[in-house]
């Protein structure tokens, strides 16, 4: 039986969402396959790592018992042995518990995880892992980089200007003028590497623009200013695959002020009655329509754009691509990529005929396929450099 380590939590604004993703959307279905042994690895808000069966129980976090647990539990050590082994000291004096990991399933959202940092560690360990690799994760995390990279592949995103804090402060007037001449109001100003709409402002005039840039640069060293898409319809497309890509349904998240419905009532746990287990990026979205309520033409264009983005950025395993549609001009713009969608967006996959178990099983297979392919590449060379030295 293969051992899969699910790593979640971490120093991120989306720490709590990650716990739900890991426990309900990954560990439960993986265990339901009966094919794998699952190890839960939790990264606390302070960055400490823990590994324990108890960490699989959502109640531990809900009740606050996690603090008590962390006071007593030993922290995890990672052993890199051309693979990854979890190590922790056990109750018996001097004895240590070891667990060799066959596949890692990263389940962190946002900073210090989804942004590629965790993937770097796993690459160093040479252990197969689920999802996007280091460069694609890092690019996906950066709204400027991801737009530049996809533009190189002919994918359209709203026209933008971007700058670092020092570039901007050296020439404020110049930047404002350039924005005014090259971009059309209204505009969106965003920090380059944040999520959850933090620090984002929509601006209608120059005075608002100056403030908005200050706000964005308060959150990040890098900011972007882009044209607002008119007649906006937002859609999102979950995709899985390494080389052969499979999209789920094009989904249309409806504005969060749309009333009482949320993902929960609409898509999760139907018939089970209300227990909060999962829910997209909770709070960021209201309920949604699957499939999106758009013309066949726009639906196909959305799929095509999303698949193009996935390829251009070099995503693997799984990702979700957010698109902005101008419904009058019938144009589809790329907005951003989420390498690890909350709860894997499994409500959409289920609506598209993939059970939770089908989804996680496929993702684990994809991780192993990619790793196997990589082992065939030559990465070391023997030289006589040392002898000559």
């Amino acid at each position, binding site marked *: 039986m293969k051992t899969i380590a699910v790593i979640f939590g971490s120093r991120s604004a989306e720490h709590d969402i990650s716990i739900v993703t890991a426990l309900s959307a990954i560990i439960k279905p993986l265990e339901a396959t009966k094919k794998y042994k699952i190890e839960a690895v939790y990264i606390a808000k302070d960055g400490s790592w823990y590994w324990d069966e108890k960490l699989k129980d959502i109640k531990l976090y809900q009740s606050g018992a996690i603090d008590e647990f962390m006071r007593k539990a030993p922290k995890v050590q990672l052993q890199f042995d051309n693979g990854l082994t979890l190590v922790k000291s056990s109750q018996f004096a001097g004895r240590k518990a070891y667990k060799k990991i066959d596949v890692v399933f990263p389940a962190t959202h946002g900073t210090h995880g989804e942004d590629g940092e965790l993937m770097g560690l796993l690459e160093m360990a040479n252990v197969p892992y689920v999802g996007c690799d280091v460069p694609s994760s890092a690019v996906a995390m950066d709204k400027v980089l991801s737009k530049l990279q996809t533009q190189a592949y002919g994918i359209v995103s709203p026209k933008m200007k971007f700058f670092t804090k020092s570039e901007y402060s050296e020439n404020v007037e110049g930047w404002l003028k350039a924005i005014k001449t090259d971009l059309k109001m209204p505009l969106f100003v965003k920090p380059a590497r944040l999520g959850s709409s933090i620090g984002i402002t929509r601006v209608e005039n120059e005075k608002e623009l100056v403030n908005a840039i200050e706000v964005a640069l308060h959150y990040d060293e890098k900011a972007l200013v882009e044209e607002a898409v008119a007649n906006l319809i937002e859609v999102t497309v979950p995709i899985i695959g390494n080389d052969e890509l499979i999209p789920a349904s094009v989904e249309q998240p409806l504005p969060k002020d749309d009333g009482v419905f949320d993902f929960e009532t609409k898509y999760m746990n139907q018939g089970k009655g209300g227990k909060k287990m999962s829910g997209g990026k909770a709070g960021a979205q209201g309920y949604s329509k699957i499939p999106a309520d758009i013309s066949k033409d726009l639906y196909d264009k959305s799929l095509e754009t999303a698949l193009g983005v996935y390829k251009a950025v070099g995503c693997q395993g799984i990702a979700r691509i957010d698109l902005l549609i101008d419904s009058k001009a019938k144009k589809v713009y790329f907005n951003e990529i989420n390498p690890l969608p909350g709860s894997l967006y499994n409500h959409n996959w*289920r*609506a*598209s005929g*993939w059970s939770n178990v089908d989804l996680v099983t496929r993702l684990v297979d994809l991780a192993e396929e990619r790793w196997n392919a990589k082992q065939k590449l030559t990465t070391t060379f023997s030289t006589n450099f040392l002898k000559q030295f």
Partner: protein
Amino acid sequence: MKTLRAFLSYYSPKFPLYFAYMLQQVEYDPKKFHEWSGRLLRNTQTLQSVATRKRLVMTRRAKLLVLATYGFATIFIILYAWLVLVLDFRILALLIGILALPHVSRYFLEFTAYVAQNLIIAPEQKRMTEEAARIFADHTGVKIAVLGSYGKTTMKELLATILSQGKKVAATPGNMNVSTSHARFARSLKGDEDVLIVEFGEGEPGDIERMAQMFKPDYAIITGLAPNHLDYYPDLKAVAKDLLSIYDFVPADKVLVSGESKMLKDFLPKAAHVFTTGGTLGWKTSNIKPTIAGVTFDLNKAKSQFKLASGLLGRYQVAPLALVAALADKLGMSKSDIEAGMKKTAPFQHRMQPRLINGAWLIDDAYNGNLEGMQAGLKLLAELPAKRKWYVTPGLVDQGVETVRVHKELGKAIAESNPNIVVLMNNSARPIIEEAMLNEGFKNELRVETNPLDFYVQIEHLVASGDVLLMQNDWTDNYS
């Protein structure tokens, strides 16, 4: 190891609760309790294993039994300790006493149940039965008895739902189908009902006759025959004989018998009035359409035509539905009332009850406990459109000598229905079903689950939109 654990399990301080639970499950029948506890010992199962699904319901009777057992245990210990102290074996004797305690308590409970049965319950039952017979005899409503090895409750509920559209109807509640519940039902009547419907449960030979004597039905409906209670009947013929004894009480043209039950056919009198998917009482069905939302069909006789739609699932429901519509017509109900009543028929809890889970249709048929019902469900599964079809069952219980035959038939029916994934539970029925499936050429995926409960909670992770999952006949505790 297993033996030791089973042995030790009797010394949990909670043992009286488990015994009381077992007694409750067998309706306080000392004989059945004796058999079950014997089986438990022979199979070296732990005492706790009896109650993995349900829990003891603390009724007054259960409370009394638990208290009595604890009381008995206490007195036993005190008396025994006293004996031990006066005599002089001490430690050894004390040990023997403690070891014997749960088992002595078991016999105590059995004895108590036996005494209560004969001294209190039986005479009380006799009095109630006589009173009920008087109430039924004086009642002016049309009296319908529903009997058969399966489908009684469904039939009764259908009658009640449809007839209620135009008449005042009273029916025995839930699964209550023993004499005492009939007596209680009689007491609850107001006297102004147009129709009385009573479900006759056959538990042991002579039951039907006793119930008929009490109720004196005008009509009787026999829903089917299956080897269901063979633990208490010598053979299928005895069950059939019991069911058909209704002809001694009801005129032959008012006994309506299912023509869909293969086993029943062999025992029927020539003049029997049958009801089938094709129709009954001169009515003919046509245009039958089963979907996940129910079944629709037309019913014709001479110039009359009903257009009927029911929420019940499966083509096989058409036979009872058509019968009830025909009977409603005979009792003077209007076409519009019959059609409206039919629309109100919906699946019952755990009987071919469709539920949407994670975009998939789960058909909960957990209360289906006989081969014919299971075959019908499998036919529906074959008929429904779906991307992926699942079939889940632990097999059938209570089949006596028929066990092998029934599970072979079931395996065959599964192979014919040919779902994409079949999930069986790892029990004594599994190898028989599996072999029959494979013999019939089943080539799709077969999964065997060791822990049914585990599987049931994981279903939500296993299914997605486009799936249909049919789950038939949950395993009950006393047969695990």
